[in-house]
């Protein structure tokens, strides 16, 4: 059971909520899919069991075979190819690895050349599995790393998998949502938060996923989010207060539920409600 934590807006508390909930659920898995800046491992400090290098398809061109027909350059929507002195040349930074040019080349001058785009650290902390994806600096997209994290997670067996997704509503988030069975939307009760929350709700709805909402950094008046949830029949399963002590624990990269019984209780309550929504 993959539960994706998404928010649209960055800094709403996806990592905070997914880490603390995962820490309260026995034998759970924490998957850090925010590969551009993974930080869940800073809280779990897992012992690393395995490193998985993730390769994307890149291409190499055999200049001796290339007859300069220009078909590959015309085909590439990412502009990763250009023609110089009637020979195709490739810019690996721009290549998205779709492999289209390989198919289109009538001289068979282009072939696949895997390029490393990142790494997945597989580890554990107590009885929790911790998988973290790291995208190499300068690489375009972590979609393939995310896909690989989910395929590794499948070997873990059954249980609840807490998926810490990237911010925004782009390809990487969609890849995560695609693999998730249920979505927990983390919402911030501010005007900016609401605007991003709406986009995220639309994304989950259009991908046909069931979702629940957790409000974070609540200062008492959450009507902005609550009203929207009611209109869209979204269950609200928890509200975390804007709390300096909590923020302080988080800033020290400590897991709040391990620090005090009171916080453990709050997260247990959220989990009970989230779980009953999932099982509904």
């Amino acid at each position, binding site marked *: 059971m993959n539960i994706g934590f998404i928010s649209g807006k960055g800094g709403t508390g996806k990592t905070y909520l997914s880490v603390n909930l995962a820490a309260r659920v026995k034998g759970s898995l924490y998957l850090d899919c925010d590969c551009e800046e993974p930080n869940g491992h800073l809280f779990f400090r897992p012992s690393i069991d395995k490193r998985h290098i993730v390769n994307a398809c890149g291409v190499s061109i055999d200049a001796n075979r290339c007859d300069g027909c220009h078909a590959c350059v015309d085909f590439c929507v*990412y*502009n990763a190819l*250009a*023609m*110089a*002195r009637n020979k195709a040349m490739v810019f690996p930074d*721009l290549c998205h690895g779709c492999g289209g040019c390989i198919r289109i080349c009538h001289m068979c001058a282009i072939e696949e050349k895997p390029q490393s785009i990142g790494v997945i650290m597989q580890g554990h902390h107590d009885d929790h599995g911790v998988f973290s994806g790291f995208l190499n600096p300068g690489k375009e997209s972590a979609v393939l790393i995310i896909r690989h994290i989910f395929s590794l997670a499948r070997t873990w067996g059954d249980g609840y998998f807490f998926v810490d997704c990237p911010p925004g509503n782009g390809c990487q988030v969609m890849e995560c949502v695609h693999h998730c069975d249920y979505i927990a939307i983390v919402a911030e009760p501010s005007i900016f938060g609401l605007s991003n929350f709406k986009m995220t709700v639309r994304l989950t709805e259009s991908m046909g996923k069931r979702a629940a909402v957790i409000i974070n950094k609540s200062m008492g008046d959450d009507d902005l989010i609550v009203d929207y949830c009611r209109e869209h029949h979204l269950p609200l399963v928890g509200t975390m207060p804007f709390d300096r002590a909590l923020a302080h624990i988080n800033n020290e990269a400590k897991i709040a539920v391990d620090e005090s019984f009171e916080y453990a209780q709050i997260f247990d309550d959220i989990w009970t409600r989230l779980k009953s929504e999932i099982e509904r």
Partner: protein
Amino acid sequence: MIIALPTLGNTLDSPVSPQFGRTPYFCLYDLESDSVRFIRNDATESQGGAGVKAADLIVNMGVEILIAQNVGEKALHVFRQSGIEIYVSRANHITLDIERYKSGKLTKIISSNPQ
């Protein structure tokens, strides 16, 4: 021999564009026939890799000399491979820059940041 300049408009009084890849037009000047024409730069529509696409267009047009204010790293790479020479536009003016090129007063670009 064809000389190209990225330009903000498609008339001779248009300024030279500060950008290469996303310039709206290119001015193509034919040295032999002393004639000028303008082409639209489709690369402006690209999400990424506009420099590479524009460079490919310039190579395709049979250009041998490019006069520009700035050229990005990737486009420069295409031009090096193609043997196209690039000069820094100082006058920011199509005809003045071409005159200066003819009298040998323009500096060749060797890195992507000529300034």
